[in-house]
């Protein structure tokens, strides 16, 4: 093949058979968690494919640790992560309404002032 790329000229591309991908074999899928700084929690950032944890960490480093700060990366087999079905999202729907769990719900200043005013009389 005539190419402008000296590397491609060296490859002898004619030698290749049909470039068919074996679609029936797979690497393991891993979810990647990125910890930016000490003291911060690791956050899910994406997934990589690799044959073992060491390779998965290497792939994660090359894909998700390319900019800014990284303290550590975690990889977990995707098949080991369990989640609720997304259609069960409504089970959390009433949580924000549970104001009695919220510190801002508890306001006593008015009552104290009222009490103090009454004491003065």
């Amino acid at each position: 093949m005539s190419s402008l790329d000296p590397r491609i000229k060296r490859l002898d591309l004619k030698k290749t058979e049909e470039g068919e991908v074996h679609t029936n074999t797979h690497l393991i899928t891993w979810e990647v968690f990125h910890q930016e700084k000490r003291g911060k929690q690791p956050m899910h950032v994406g997934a990589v494919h690799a044959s073992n944890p060491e390779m998965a960490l290497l792939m994660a480093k090359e894909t998700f640790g390319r900019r800014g700060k990284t303290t550590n990366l975690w990889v977990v087999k995707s098949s080991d992560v369990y989640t609720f079905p997304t259609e069960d999202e409504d089970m959390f729907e009433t949580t924000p309404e549970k104001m009695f769990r919220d510190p801002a719900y508890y306001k006593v200043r008015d009552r104290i002032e009222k009490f103090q005013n009454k004491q003065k009389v």
Partner: protein
Amino acid sequence: MYGNTSLTEEEAKRLNLTEEDPIKLAEFEDRITRGEKIEPGDWMPKEYRKQLLRMIEQHAHSEIVGALPEGTWITRAPNFRRKLALIAKVQDEIGHGQLLYSAAETLGKTREQMLEDLLNGKSKYSNVFNYPALTWADVAVIGFLVDGAAIVNQVINSKGSYGPYCRALERICYEESFHLKQGHDNVVYLATGTKHQRAILQDAINRWYRPLLHFFGPPDRNSQHSEKLMKWKVKLASNDDMRNQFLDQYVPKIWELDLTFPDPNLKKNDDGIWEFSDPDWDEFKRVINGGGPCNAERLEVRKYAEEAGRWVRNALMSKNEKYVMPMA
């Protein structure tokens, strides 16, 4: 880096929603109207899944094929600093391919099948990568203008409705801002250099002008954008709108260097719309269908990589490993 994915008329016509559950469809559309994202486990219309998959897969292929024209110049970069930047950029592009393949996989197609479809020609990549990088100035123009065009496209698409694609695009846009800046730096360096440097730069701009206009796809008058896909936030801006935004941002940055585009009709009208000569849409079609200067080479190189790396994958892959979709 990335190319265009616009619908042909035929594809738009095929959008058939009569088979979908009307209640689920309404819930799905309400969610998008409210500005919420769709996540992999959610119910979605078949056509939404199909169009998104096609678009993200094509984007992923564009990243890994897009690394080839620039990769050519790593061994011949003019100095060490430029070489380091170019290696980083090309490796970024491959990483972007990884991110996008993962996002596409969440829609239900394996990475191996996507790579196979790239090689057998079933799925495409951006047309712009079927042109050669003849000189070092091409690397500058690709880094500045092709990446600039890609960023216009990607920033718009990152406001789409599919969560995994949006997250991948946000990371990609963040990394590509460096590509753009180093490309601009490279262009300015050549433009303010010797007569010869200015000449090769002008020559590269002349050659990339048409492919850049083609980049955003056929004009709106020839390309049907299904209202459905706009409503579903799969497609967020028309081809002409994106092209106009690109010209508006980048033409002045070339003109201020006293360089030109090879088009006497290129100008901005009072209404803010850029005018340009017809960039030969027949050539666009011809190149998409395999007739470009580098189509064959790009696929040959991918096939070679597939073949030459197979013994490594065979050693690593286990026949018993069941395929697991990435989660998000």
